[in-house]
């Protein structure tokens, strides 16, 4: 794009869009004022409803009005701040054609060849391959859509497209810690980027976007670089981020939620392979909390055991005791009839 005529053509397109943007600012101000006015009308209606509710002692209805008024005041505050933002903004002078051409020249000087697609009216710049904290993310194409420049107050007019994508293992849409679905979340650079675009300073715009792409903010990424490659579940191979992985203290591997469990007695995390099971209540158990029934030797949790015996053995023992008790009673009756004979008269005597 070394032809000066081409630069003038692009500059002309940019200038046309910036003229539209200037008008859009007034339209946006009008829209925000209408929204604020609508919300004010709604709050007046709510105040009438509140007065009616109070006159009838309908306190439940009054509470409902209060909730609506609370929501509306938040909305009004938002719209008023937007109105103020647009109203106090000084009118931007549309840059001259020569200034825009100079800017495009600077852009080429700084970053080499820029692409201009006449059909889609896009200006693009390709960054060098980006590596952040030893994580290779590849080169990005910063693509500014001139047609969308006039919609700057509603939508972002550019995209950051990964040309050799190395997305986060847990989310293919995230090609950079601050890029999702080809959209850059500008963070600290938001206001400066908007101002640069409003003033037609394209070189500054591309430099700022490039600066964000070359910087990692660990406090607020879509996916942190620490989790970029994810971690495969040792059992099923599912790629998970570290916040959602579970470490089995028994086999010392990481597992996904599906493949892990925990001991119901001590709450130790375990994989499903290492977790034992209480054969009575069937709840998972770790080896430390698994007890054996002293009688039959089955594995049980502590709460299912009573005097080191499982409920089955207790039942059996009770049944045996009952049986032996009956037998003893029967034997006694048979073996010592004299006692019953002696007792009967006593009862008789008592009666």
């Amino acid at each position, binding site marked *: 794009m070394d032809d000066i005529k081409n630069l003038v053509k692009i500059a002309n397109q940019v200038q046309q869009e910036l003229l539209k943007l200037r008008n859009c600012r007034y339209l946006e101000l009008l829209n925000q004022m209408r929204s604020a006015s609508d919300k004010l009308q709604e709050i007046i209606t709510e105040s009438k409803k509140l007065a009616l509710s109070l006159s009838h002692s309908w306190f439940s209805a009054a509470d409902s009005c209060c909730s609506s008024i609370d929501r509306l005041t938040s909305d009004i505050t938002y719209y008023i701040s937007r109105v103020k933002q647009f109203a106090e903004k000084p009118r931007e002078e549309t840059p001259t054609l020569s200034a825009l051409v100079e800017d495009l020249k600077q852009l080429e000087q700084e970053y080499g060849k820029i692409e201009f697609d006449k059909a889609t009216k896009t200006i693009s710049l390709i960054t060098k391959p980006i590596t952040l904290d030893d994580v290779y993310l590849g080169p990005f194409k910063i693509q500014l859509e001139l047609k969308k420049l006039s919609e700057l107050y509603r939508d972002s007019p550019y995209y950051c497209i990964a040309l050799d994508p190395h997305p986060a293992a847990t989310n293919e849409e995230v090609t950079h810690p*601050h890029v999702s679905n080809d959209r850059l979340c500008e963070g600290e650079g938001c206001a400066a980027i908007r101002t640069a675009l409003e003033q037609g300073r394209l070189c500054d715009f591309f430099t700022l976007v490039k600066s964000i792409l070359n910087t990692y903010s660990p406090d607020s990424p879509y996916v942190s670089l620490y989790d970029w490659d994810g971690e495969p579940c040792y059992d099923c191979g599912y790629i998970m981020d570290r916040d959602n992985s579970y470490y089995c203290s028994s086999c010392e591997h990481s597992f996904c939620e599906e493949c892990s469990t925990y001991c119901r007695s001590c709450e130790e995390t375990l994989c499903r392979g290492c977790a034992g099971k209480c054969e009575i209540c069937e709840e998972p158990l770790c080896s430390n909390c698994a007890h054996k029934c002293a009688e039959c030797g089955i594995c049980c949790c502590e709460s299912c055991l009573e005097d080191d015996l499982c409920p089955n053995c207790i039942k059996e023992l009770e049944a045996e005791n009952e049986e032996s008790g009956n037998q003893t009673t029967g034997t006694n009756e048979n073996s010592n009839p004299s006692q019953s004979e002696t007792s009967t008269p006593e009862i008789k005597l008592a009666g």
Partner: protein
Amino acid sequence: MRILYINNDGCGYADYIDVAENTTVEQFFMIKMSGKDAGDYMIRVNRQPVPKDYVLREGDRITITPTKVEGAKSL
């Protein structure tokens, strides 16, 4: 003397300001970006890179753009 100062740090703005005669780029940066490291910024005068001892002149256009800007994620 009067120069055009474009600061792309923070909110970003462009305005004509008065500076003392014989102010170098380094002095200008220290005044305007006190406490900041010049290495973290791309400084251009009239769209060109200049040495730090470049003396600003009437009508110059100086741009200071951060090369480290922290992005975020959508809320």
